[in-house]
């Protein structure tokens, strides 16, 4: 089957109203995805939009809570990974799921080895592996070679050969280009083109819009666990439209405005020309007490790296960070915390919280010394103070002994905020403060951020949601490709202005890459 004409073919896969809940968060909240044979279908969305969860549903790793899946028009359920593979869905994960110590052929046929009476037929497998690799245009990869000795690109080819060996009709690729250099990406795209013309469908996930334009046929955009756009032509949809769909350009009145003027005082936080190789460079800004600085930009622009470097979680290669006139020790989190810095990290669960511990113990984590004398904690006063902090940010339910894991995303975020509130930090760095937080709790968190600023805390906010950055901050820095491309008051720029700045930067770098090639 080689039809890639404009004539609509019946869908191979049709997912409707898919819902997947985890304790405290609805990761998928009504996702629709329709994939036709012989197309490269791109899946777009911010981190946390639900792409990874959707892939796991498709590959049988997660069972759905609601919604229907049709495969060639027939209802199907991907109960476990074997069922998904049997139906014809193969997934190539971002962290490639290959076993380094086994040979190329062993990896390709892992789980469906060619064997007779339990004894593997190595010659047979090697021969088939060689054919598959040849089909993929990589006959130079020897089937007997150990996978661990291959480059990332080579491993990806092996993963694809594995998908082919399963006679997959849909191959899901999760950010396949993230680990490749430009030449290897070209090779990958050639292979994808071949697969498509052989009739297989590809679900392609990437943050890189220019790739989607090169390789994609149609695309679906996810935001907050919902499909916000589907069936868009991948080549002709404008970048601005895509970014608007992903970030949600819905300006609303949920952002509380500043009520008092900013005092003309010395800045609390001064960041001077910090940089890290390959990540970002020459980032400078000051934050006065009560001021909110926003860092806007796309995923991968270097925003989180900047904020983590300020906090000392990464070591700066250049530049200095000063808090209240005192220079921070480079690459030392405890010196930053000591000086009054706090961080609400991007990955709340893995970086911010001890999930199986109580609310109050998570809140007091950064202030243990305050509630102890000679190292002996005063449990009562600690718990009371932490409870008061939890109440001041309205953590629900109002139970300081509750285990964090059972709270919703919004309430978990409030616990992290309460931690720094209790420590009465002077400067608070917030990385994606409303990721995985539902709309109602979002407004509460915005109000809390405003209250903190009004009480004299200096804040730095990073968010993929451009409206959030603009709505909250006094001044906005637009980051693209690790550099500050715009620095000005937030009321002097709107969302499309920010997008223009990003795109302008984007275009020039793309041009440079084009010139270099």
């Amino acid at each position, binding site marked *: 089957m080689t039809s890639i004409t404009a004539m609509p073919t019946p869908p191979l896969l049709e997912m409707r109203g898919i819902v997947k809940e985890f*304790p405290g968060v609805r990761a998928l909240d009504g996702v629709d995805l329709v994939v036709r044979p012989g197309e490269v279908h791109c899946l777009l969305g911010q981190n946390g939009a639900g792409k990874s969860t959707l892939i796991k549903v498709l590959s049988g790793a997660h069972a759905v809570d609601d919604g229907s899946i049709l495969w060639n028009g027939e209802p199907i359920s991907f109960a476990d990974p074997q069922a998904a593979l049997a139906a014809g869905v193969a997934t190539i994960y971002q962290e490639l799921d290959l076993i380094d110590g086994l040979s190329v052929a062993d990896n390709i046929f892992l789980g469906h080895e060619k064997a007779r009476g339990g004894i593997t037929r190595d010659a047979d497998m090697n021969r088939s592996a060689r054919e598959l690799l040849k089909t993929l245009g990589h006959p130079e990869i020897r089937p007997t070679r150990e996978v661990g000795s291959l480059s990332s690109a080579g491993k990806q080819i092996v993963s694809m050969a594995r998908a082919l060996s399963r006679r997959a009709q849909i191959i899901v690729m999760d950010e396949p280009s993230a680990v490749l250099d430009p030449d290897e990406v070209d090779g990958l795209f050639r292979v994808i083109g071949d697969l498509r013309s052989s009739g297989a469908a590809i679900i392609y996930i990437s943050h890189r819009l220019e790739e989607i334009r090169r390789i994609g046929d149609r695309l679906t955009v996810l935001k907050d666990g919902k499909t916000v756009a589907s069936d868009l032509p991948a080549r002709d949809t404008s970048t601005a439209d895509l970014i608007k769909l992903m970030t949600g350009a819905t300006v609303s009145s949920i952002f509380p405005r500043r009520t008092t003027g900013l005092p003309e005082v010395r800045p609390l936080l001064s960041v001077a020309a910090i940089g890290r190789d390959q990540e970002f460079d020459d980032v400078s800004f000051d934050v006065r007490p009560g001021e909110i600085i926003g860092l806007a930009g796309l995923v991968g622009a270097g925003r989180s790296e900047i904020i983590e470097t300020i*906090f000392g*979680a990464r070591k700066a290669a250049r530049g200095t960070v000063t808090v209240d006139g005192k220079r921070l020790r480079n690459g030392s*989190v*405890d010196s*930053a*915390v*000591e000086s009054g810095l706090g*961080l609400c*990290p991007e990955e709340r669960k*893995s*970086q*911010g*919280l*001890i*999930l*199986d*511990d*109580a609310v109050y*113990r998570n809140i*007091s*984590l*950064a202030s*243990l*010394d305050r509630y*102890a004398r000679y*190292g*002996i*904690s005063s*449990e009562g006063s600690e718990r009371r103070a932490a409870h008061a902090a939890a109440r001041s940010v309205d953590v629900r339910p109002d139970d300081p*002994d509750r*285990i964090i*894991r059972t709270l919703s995303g919004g309430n978990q975020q409030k616990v992290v905020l309460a*931690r720094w509130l209790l420590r009465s930090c002077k400067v608070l760095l917030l990385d994606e403060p409303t990721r995985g937080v539902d709309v109602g709790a979002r407004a509460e968190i915005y109000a809390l951020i405003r209250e903190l600023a009004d009480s004299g805390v200096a804040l730095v906010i990073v968010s993929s949601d451009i409206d959030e950055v603009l709505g909250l901050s006094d001044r906005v820095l637009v980051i693209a490709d690790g550099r500050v491309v715009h620095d000005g008051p937030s009321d002097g720029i709107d969302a499309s202005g920010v997008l223009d700045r990003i795109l302008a930067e984007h275009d020039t770098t793309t041009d440079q890459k084009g010139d270099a090639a």
Partner: protein
Amino acid sequence: MSATDTSTTLPSTAGRGGGSLGVARNLGLVIALVLLCVVGIITSGDRFASTDNMLTILRLAAVIGVVSIGMTFVITGGGIDLSVGAIVALSSVWATTTGTQSMADDFGWIVMVFSAVIVGTACGVVNGVLIAYGKIVPFIATLAMLASARGLAEIIADRKTQIITDQGFTDFFGAEPLGIPMIVIIFALVTLVGWFLLNRTTFGRRTFAVGGNPEAARLAGIKVQRHTVYLYALLGTTCGIAAVMLMSRTTTGSSTHGLGYELDAIAAVVIGGTLLSGGRGTVIGTLFGVIIFTTLTNVFTLNNLSTSAQAVAKGVIIVVAVLLQQRIADRKT
């Protein structure tokens, strides 16, 4: 008798860290111990249910108990230590060389105690530094210590058993104030201090945090690497103390002391309810774990059953305890 005394402290400690399920888990341990005692009374009657026999059990539990309390901290903090038996051996040998013993003659037997504790602590510091700063996984780092500490003990002792000649040392640790053997008193003190340290101090809280989510602990300003060193050093110290207790019980220092302690200590900690993955730990549970194992040994010995049969029973207990633990963990999520 002390065994039943400690059970009265259960309700107040059970709620910590594990929520209401902690009660259930410790309740399981109490039931297991009671069942063992019932078996003991039925099969051996008064020979089991005598004060003398209770003290025998506690004396038997004391040395491995002290090591297990230290192990509770390391495992709660997300680590593991396979070298405890070897550290006990090295400490006991170091503290009983002719050199140390002649110094003890001049300055008092306390010199021997100090050398054992300092050697133990130093080994722990080496473990901790290799793991926290050298980034060697705990299993491997302490495996290396296991091999080299026992090897060093053999070299120093020249594979001979070193007899303790100091009468003051044997008198002090052999004493039985109020009828309770000194080493049982030391075990009780270490348990009390351990419980307090884990549940009532910032050190304990940091231990839970470092074991529960090291990245979150680091980003909350906790010095995770330094704390890891402290944890292994603390376990080294308890190994040193255990070495002193073993020296008094056997009146010797030997490179064969403490064989198999690592497995006994880990088993006691795990059946007590401390999670091997870290983040949750209980000193009281460990105390129960140790006493359950020694009571088992005692019951088997009284009935003239072989040590091989004991080993089988021990294995079964470990598996059942861990299965129960997983059941509880599953119900929680």
